[in-house]
Structure formats: structure tokens, C-alpha cells
């Protein structure tokens, strides 16, 4: 039996599932609105219902993103010299020959990704509230419309990168999202500073 270590708590796993699920559905319905995709509208029984679903999924996304702050925000704001070196070797993603510096629980790519999701996530949430509740204010509507769409473009690029890196590009990572566990042996290699910090090196 391989010795496992818990990387994500149940709390984090459940919240991430809500965040990810709502995000994917919001993007799908968003594409439906953006490009008038009747096939997507039909899934929801028409665009009227799809709008309601999109709005309320936005609430789920907002609450979930807000809740995620206490999981990841502090760590995502801390960077050290190894993190800088990580960027110089592009995290080892462009070549398997480079030496990737020792990492903590999250690498700086993940930390910056989280900050981007927070920034553009809240931008898309606040502008969504503008579009939902300030329909009679032309300035708010136009501003919200452009912010909503700029954030959408950023997220629709960033999120699939995260999905690729969390699955195909790093075999074994997906199970952390599902049950929170990873083999201690792998963790010692991938996250030595984290394992040292919790005294399991």
C-alpha cells in the first residue's frame, strides 16, 4: 500500500467542484448567448430559461469564489526566490531536462492563476450584477457589458490551461481534485518545502 498524504481537504474539494462546475456551465451558456447557439439554448428549453440559469449559476460561482479565498488567497500572495527561478525554467513545462527548483504546496504558476481567477472572477461577478440589476442605467449597463466580456475572454483562456495542467500535463493530479490525496513519495519530490514544513520529509 502506497503511503498517501492529504493535499486538499473535503472542504476545498467540494468548494472547488462547485466553482468548477458553475464556471464551466456559465461559460457554456455564455457562449450560447455570445454566438446565438440554438443547440445550447435548447438544452435549457430556450434562452429565457437559460438566462435565469446563467444568473443563478453566477450566484453559486460568486459564493464559491468568495469562500475559496480563505483556502488559497494568503498562500497565493507569497513568493520567494525559488518561485522566481521557477519562472526562469518555465516550471519545467517546456523541457524535461531543466532543473525545477523545490516548490511549496503550490507553484507560482498556480498562485498567479488563482489571483487571476480572483481578479477576473470578481470583475465578471460585479459586472454580472450590473447587467442583472441595473438595467435602466445605460452607463452601468455598457460598462458592465464590456467588463463582463473582457473577463470572459481572459477566463475562457485561463481556465482550460488550468484544466490541461491539472489532468493530462501532470498525470496523477486529477485525483487530488477528487479525493484530496496524493502519494507521499510524489509529494516529497514535487512539494519538498511543503512536506518539510509539515515534518514528513
Amino acid at each position, binding site marked *: 500500500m502506497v503511503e498517501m498524504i492529504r493535499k486538499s481537504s473535503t472542504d476545498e474539494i467540494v468548494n472547488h467542484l462547485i466553482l468548477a462546475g458553475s464556471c464551466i456551465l456559465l461559460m457554456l451558456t455564455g457562449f450560447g448567448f455570445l454566438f446565438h447557439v440554438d443547440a445550447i439554448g435548447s438544452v435549457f428549453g430556450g434562452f429565457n430559461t437559460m438566462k435565469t440559469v446563467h444568473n443563478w449559476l453566477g450566484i453559486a460561482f460568486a459564493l464559491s469564489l468568495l469562500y475559496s479565498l480563505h483556502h488559497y488567497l494568503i498562500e497565493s500572495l507569497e513568493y520567494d526566490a525559488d518561485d522566481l527561478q521557477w519562472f526562469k525554467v518555465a516550471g519545467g513545462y517546456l523541457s524535461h531536462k531543466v532543473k525545477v527548483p523545490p516548490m511549496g504546496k503550490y507553484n507560482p504558476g498556480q498562485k498567479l492563476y488563482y489571483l487571476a481567477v480572483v481578479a477576473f472572477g470578481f470583475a465578471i461577478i460585479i459586472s454580472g450584477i450590473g447587467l442583472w440589476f441595473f438595467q435602466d442605467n*445605460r452607463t452601468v449597463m455598457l460598462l458592465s457589458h*464590456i467588463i463582463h466580456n473582457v473577463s470572459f475572454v481572459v477566463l475562457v483562456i485561463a481556465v*482550460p490551461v488550468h484544466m*490541461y495542467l491539472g489532468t*493530462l500535463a501532470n498525470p496523477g493530479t486529477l485525483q487530488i481534485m477528487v479525493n484530496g490525496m496524493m502519494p507521499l513519495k510524489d509529494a516529497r*519530490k514535487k512539494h519538498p518545502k511543503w512536506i518539510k514544513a509539515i515534518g514528513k520529509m
Partner: protein
Amino acid sequence: MTNDTTKKRKAILVTPENCIGCRACQVACKSWNQLDPIKTKNNGTYQNPPDLAGTAFNIIQFSEVPSQIDPVRWLFLSRRCMHCDDAGCMTICPSPGALFRTPEGAVAFDHKKCIGCKLCSSACPFDVPRYGADGKMSKCNLCADRIAADMTPSCVKTCPTGALKFGDRDELISAAQKEGFKTIYGEKDLGGLGTIYAFKDEPKLYGMLENPTIPTSVVFWHTYLKPLSLIGLGGVVAAAAIHYLAIGPHKEEEKEEEV
């Protein structure tokens, strides 16, 4: 956007100097479209209702603009949807079929498909779209049902002075120019409007917008952001596939041997 409907594109030509402000057009519009009355208050002008509304698709705008020779001068302007060729409302509308172009070139709407997001009114240069009690968009549709049956729109039908004319857009424009109207408002704006105005005075005097344009942010969104979202997503998928094949996933075992 010039399309194949241009040739037979229909329009309403408004000649404000022929308008006597009788508001029969308002009544006829209400009657044909079965629009509920609006309770209004006297606010010191004959303009009533005070603005376009969910149940008022056209109004006559009263402006008092005295001049040197004419100390008591009232200007009457019949307002309704402009039926732009390049229509901001249609560009921004997220629900397919909620706003659509009739074969005669009018911008018509389908209540059932409208999702009530009200983006159309933000994108309209002329502040036309209004909303009914159900929160859905409603505005002039150039009496699409009437003109499809070879009738004229109800406002035009009832106009006693010829201040409203309906017909082939090109013919209306050339006729008005022959009559000596210098300015045909809407001849070229936004790809050409479907409600055009024949003026001898400055259109500004009547409260017309000088250079109507779709808001820049809406044009930017439509031209760049929309395609970018698809290109971005497609690019990421392609880049991930190339990365997976050319460089390959992270390999833990090899690393260990190197270290």
C-alpha cells in the same frame, strides 16, 4: 451591412415642417398595435405621453424654438424606432430571433424570444427600445404585419398632412431632394436609417442627434472580443495538444534519476 433587401427597402419619411402636431399617428399606432393607455400628468407641454414607452411606439416631440421672424414657433417631430441598417440593438441582443430584420428592412421583435436583458436599449443610439409590463422589449416594428400585406404603417395611413410618407426608401429620398429639402437625416447614418427625415432647418433644432453612432464599447466587443473568445479557447486547446505531443506530460520517474 448592405444586404439583398436594400433594393426593396421600405422607409417612413418624416417631413416635420408639414406636421401640425395633431398626434393622430400616436392614436392610430395605439389602435392598430392594441397598446394600453398611459396615465400622464400635465407637465407644461402638449407633448403627451412625455416620452416613448412600452405602450407608446411613437410620439410627437414638441419643442418651442422662437426665431427672429417667428416669436411663437413650435416644432413637431414624429419619433419612433429608426430601423437602422446597422442596428446596435440587433448587434448586442444575446437571444437569437428576439430582434430580426423583416424583408422590407424593418427591425422587428419577437416577444417570446426576448429574454428581457435590456441590453438593446443600452446599444441604441436613439434611446428607442422600451419595455412592457412583462419586462420584454417593445417598440415600433414599422407595422411589419401591415406592410407584409401591402398596407402602409398605421401612423402613415392616418397622417392628414403628408408629414409621414411610406414607400420605397430610395424613391422617398430622391422625391424629398427634388422638393428642395437640403438635409435628408438618416440617408447615410448607421448604414442608412429606415425612418428618414426631410429638413430645411438644422436637424439639431428639432432635437435630432448630430452623429448617431453605436457605442464604441459595443462595436469593440462585436469586432474584437467576440472572435477573440473563440480564437482564445481554440488556441489553448491547440497549444495543449501540441505541448502534449511535442514535449509531453510531466514525468516523475526520470526526474528522480537525474537528481
